[in-house]
């Protein structure tokens, strides 16, 4: 269970996050929506310990996240994918996933160097998990390709796969649909919906493609200028007048309702 209380973050005079409360139950897909610059990625960067908020608290289960350093967050079961994809370009897809498994039951340096049974068993488990992720995302055929050779959409999938390989309890996905053709959004949404059951992890999803979010998430929080403006089921949030204002500017909401869902509301 993730809980943010009164989190505020500003850069100079610009408020990126404004007194945000956010809860995410275990076992569900939640989503943060909002136009570009609404503060969505900043929220992930706070949870990830990239940004230090000026006030507020971030709690995950019993852990005070703000006391951790960024490389420790993953040990508490929180892992993420990146908006711009941060794969290890020179490594193969499979090796990228294996790096994700590195922190699980780490044998000592010497144990590993001399390949003692413990290290070998670990290697097998890591490989098995990476294989499962490849299959789940249907990218097994890319396993030997170097990450830098892949088109952006595939790299997004590998990035998501690496985050899954870390065995997370909470998976943060930063715009997983960006760079993917619209035709694939529905199948991506279906994959994301399966994550809580298949991988025993909850998901916090960010996207400005409303279509993807509505299809993948069961709980949606809408942000504008760093503040929460609406929260609820996808349908509730979609029809909230403040959300429509934030997306399309203050206009006649009823008129825009149909067009908005079709256009996918690219922010």
């Amino acid at each position, binding site marked *: 269970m993730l809980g943010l209380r009164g989190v505020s973050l500003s850069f100079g005079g610009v408020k990126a996050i404004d007194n945000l409360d956010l809860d995410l139950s275990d076992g569900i897909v939640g989503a943060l929506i909002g136009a570009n610059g609404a503060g969505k990625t900043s929220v992930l960067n706070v949870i990830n310990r990239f940004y230090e908020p000026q006030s507020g608290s971030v709690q995950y289960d019993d852990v005070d996240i703000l006391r951790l350093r*960024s490389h420790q967050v*993953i040990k508490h079961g929180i892992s993420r994918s990146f908006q711009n994809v941060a794969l290890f*370009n020179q490594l193969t897809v499979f*090796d990228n996933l294996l*790096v994700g498994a*590195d922190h699980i039951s780490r044998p000592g340096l010497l144990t590993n160097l001399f*390949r003692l049974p413990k290290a070998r068993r670990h*290697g097998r488990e890591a490989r098995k998990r990476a294989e499962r992720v490849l299959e789940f995302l249907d990218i097994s055929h890319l396993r030997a390709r170097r990450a830098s050779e892949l088109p952006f959409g595939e790299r997004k999938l590998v990035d998501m796969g*690496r985050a899954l390989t*870390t065995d997370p309890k909470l998976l943060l996905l930063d715009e997983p649909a960006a760079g993917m053709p619209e035709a694939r959004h529905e199948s991506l949404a279906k994959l994301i919906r399966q994550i809580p059951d298949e991988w025993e992890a909850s998901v916090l999803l960010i996207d400005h493609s409303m279509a993807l979010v509505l299809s993948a998430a069961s709980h949606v929080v809408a942000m504008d200028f760093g503040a929460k403006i609406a929260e609820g089921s996808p349908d509730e949030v979609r029809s909230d007048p403040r959300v429509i204002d934030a997306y399309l500017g203050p206009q006649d909401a009823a008129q825009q309702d149909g067009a908005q869902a079709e256009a996918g509301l690219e922010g």
Partner: protein
Amino acid sequence: MHNFFQFVIGGLGFGGIYAFAALGLVLIFKTSGVVNFAFGAMATVVTLTLWSLLNHAGLPFAAAWVLAMVIAMLIGGFTNGVLMRRIERSAVLVQIVLTLGLLILIEGLAGVLWGYGPKSIPQPLSGNPVNVASFLITPNDLFIIGLTVGVGLLLFVVFEWTRVGLAMRAIAADREVASLMGIRTNLYVTGSWALGTALSGIAAILVAPSLGLEPTMMDQVAVFAFAAAIVGGFGSLIGAVVGGFLIGVASNLIAAYVSTNLQLTLIFAVIVAVLYVRPDGLFGRQAVSRQ
């Protein structure tokens, strides 16, 4: 033609020495992104320590060598863990300038501690050249070549096939993301400084019997080591080994057929030519910058 190949073989011994020095440079560069200009001075201190262990402590050569390697790793680990860590968020250029400062500082300190006069340490293997398939080669050169190939292969296997190697490759690709994936990057970077210093220490120990051991001994080797690393692609371990042998053989051929005075000049002419044809070196991969 027989002479030609004899000169080729004669260059392999020094080639192995350049390879070790280049391996040390490349290993540190791969994980930390820093070109360690102080590597030669650090390696010389390792060798001077070996000299003290032999002459003051009276240790046998093999034991002194092992102990010198341990000290090399401590020096390398200290340099990163204490000196470089403080400025790891500064621009890479700043970090490189610090290693330049270290080069001068360490050479000066070594002169104060050990004196400036050349000292001698024995070769690992002595003995007259032996005849291998009608070519003459000294046992010591054979030892150097074997050690270079063996260590090079070992490093390759560790880097490509073990989890430690995978973690180091991940750090080389993107240190920040590697840390985010739970890899203890500081530990690995310090480890690579330790190992890199041991590798260049081996180069200094092997070259000292030929050049005479004094604080600035490695300055002349450093240029060839940089050349070897660049030819190999500055980032590839195999490239460093192959580059070391290529530079060793090329300089021996230049010395034999042209002039010893032109060795450096022609070596760098060859490097310029290599870089024109393959800007990333023989084994380099195209650099991908993350800005």
